């Protein structure tokens, strides 16, 4: 099969994801690529990830909204189910490990889950600690996993101080220097991020992911 033909199929896959053409259509294209013996790695990198990147970009531009992000996530999940049997090894180029959780006192998880899903499909290993995570657990898990990035979510203004508590604990444990810290959630502002001393404050999941990618590229 010619390079142009391969590139054409991969572009079709990418476009079908970014245009949210529907799970059956995207699956059909991935099946076609597999039948054409295109390497799974290439399908993931040049088809799936590019498609998802474009979804993120449209979200940032205000063309897509949460409904589109979530559906793109659903498409990606179903595609990984199709590709799994063909994967001889972990084909995703692991960009790094992100430790993720909603801070103590806050039970919200939607934004965190969307960020986690997108990070996973973009090649990060994601360790999701869930909601209402205390500072001790964040620190212990940061040490245990050797995570590159710690992502904390807080939707409530009343739980914003927890971010500082976690940062202090990381310092006390001597791991603050080896882990980047990013925060997100409705209550978070760039100003708060600067005041409290995190490495970045993201206003949405897509921005957060871009920052994490940049950090790992710079590493």
């Amino acid at each position, binding site marked *: 099969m010619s390079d142009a033909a391969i590139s054409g199929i991969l572009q079709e896959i990418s476009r079908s994801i970014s245009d949210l053409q529907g799970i059956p259509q995207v699956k059909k294209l991935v099946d076609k690529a597999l039948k054409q013996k295109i390497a799974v790695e290439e399908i993931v990198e040049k088809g799936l990830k590019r498609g998802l990147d474009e979804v993120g970009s449209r979200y940032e531009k*205000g063309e897509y*909204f949460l409904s589109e992000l979530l559906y793109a996530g659903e498409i990606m999940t179903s595609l990984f189910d199709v590709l799994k049997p063909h994967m001889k090894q972990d084909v995703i180029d692991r960009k790094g490990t992100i430790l993720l959780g909603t801070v103590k006192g806050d039970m919200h998880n939607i934004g965190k*889950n969307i960020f986690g899903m997108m990070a996973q499909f973009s090649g990060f290993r994601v360790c999701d600690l869930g909601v209402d995570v205390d500072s001790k657990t964040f620190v212990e898990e940061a040490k245990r996993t050797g995570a590159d990035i710690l992502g904390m979510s807080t939707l409530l203004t009343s739980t914003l101080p927890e971010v500082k508590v976690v940062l202090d604990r990381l310092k006390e444990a001597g791991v603050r220097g080896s882990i980047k810290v990013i925060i997100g959630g*409705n209550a978070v502002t760039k100003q708060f991020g600067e005041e409290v001393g995190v490495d970045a404050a993201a206003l949405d999941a897509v921005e957060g992911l871009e920052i994490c990618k940049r950090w790992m590229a710079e590493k």
Partner: protein
Amino acid sequence: MTPRERIKAVLHHRKPDVLPWLESFYEETVLNWFKQGLPPEKIIVIEWEMGRGGTNLYNWPAVKGFDAYSYFGCHGFYGCVVPVDIGPLPRFKQMVLEEDERYLTVRTETGAIAKRIKGEERTWYSMPMFTEFPVKDRKTWEEYKKRLNPEDPRRYPKDWNRDDYIDAFENYQRGPTMLRFNGFYGFGAELMGIAPFNIALYKDPELIHDMASHWEYYIKETIRDAVETLKERIDMIFWWEDMAEKHGPLMSPRLYREYCLPHYKNLTGFLRRNNIDRIMVDSDGNIKPILDLFLEAGITGLWPLEVNCGMDAIEIRKKYGDKFFLIGNLDKRELAKGGEAMRREVDSKVPVLKDEGGYVPGADHLIPLEFTLERFIEYSTYMKKLLPY
């Protein structure tokens, strides 16, 4: 003018003698204030109860017997409300499914399973985490739908007597009279969960169309008696949606147009035919991308206009003129800081919007837990000086 006449005037873009001021309080905040110096003799019973009128999926704590609104001299959204129950009937049996030192997992009266942090102070404020929702697919929706029957006699109070209620709504003067119900996005997201509902918008359009159609029928027929009886005595519709986050609407404008707009129009048309045209949507988050569609839908008012999410009442006023009445938009984070930060926030909006009309000042959401009593008193004292014309 009476408090009701004042707020009605503003909702209709007329000038009152004194600008009304409106807040909503988390019960936990008020409880905190008792610890911070509110007269202890005012403390009362705290009960867990179904959201007012059965409109919420959650069981909120309610502080009984203390009226923060009259105490501080502001309006609220809970004055004279049409007592129609739009919750599922029969209710699900509420029960504790699991309990440990920190969490309580319960089945709510609306059939969801919610895990929440124990303790009276933060359980409402931090919101529970829902681990299961009652509607998952067509089959579970068909089951649930049976509980959304407008003909159920329990939807109206036993003492529902049209003449008495006409009198009550005619004579009430402490604030606006209201009718509250949930919107087409809000109800679907409550029954299915935000993520499953949003995915179903793409994966199962027929189910969503059916849910929206039934909701329109159900709400219209349930409220019909009250609306046709009370008509313009209902000053304002409080239409709960909560359909946006910081970035924008949770549902794209294209999907809103497809799934919600026709039903909105039908419902607002029904209300207008009964002389009710002050129709306010309650949605947190950034709703700017969807405001044109709200207008087309027949919505005429907005609350709370969260500053943190980029909402700006002055900008909306410039763009839309008097097409919307606006409530809120004072940055609760700045107000809670007190002093200069609070005054700066109030001064940046209240005088100019007061002048233009159609604006009721207040925080851009419920008064949060970190707002101390001392700072709230400082804020309310400052605010009250600005209210007279």
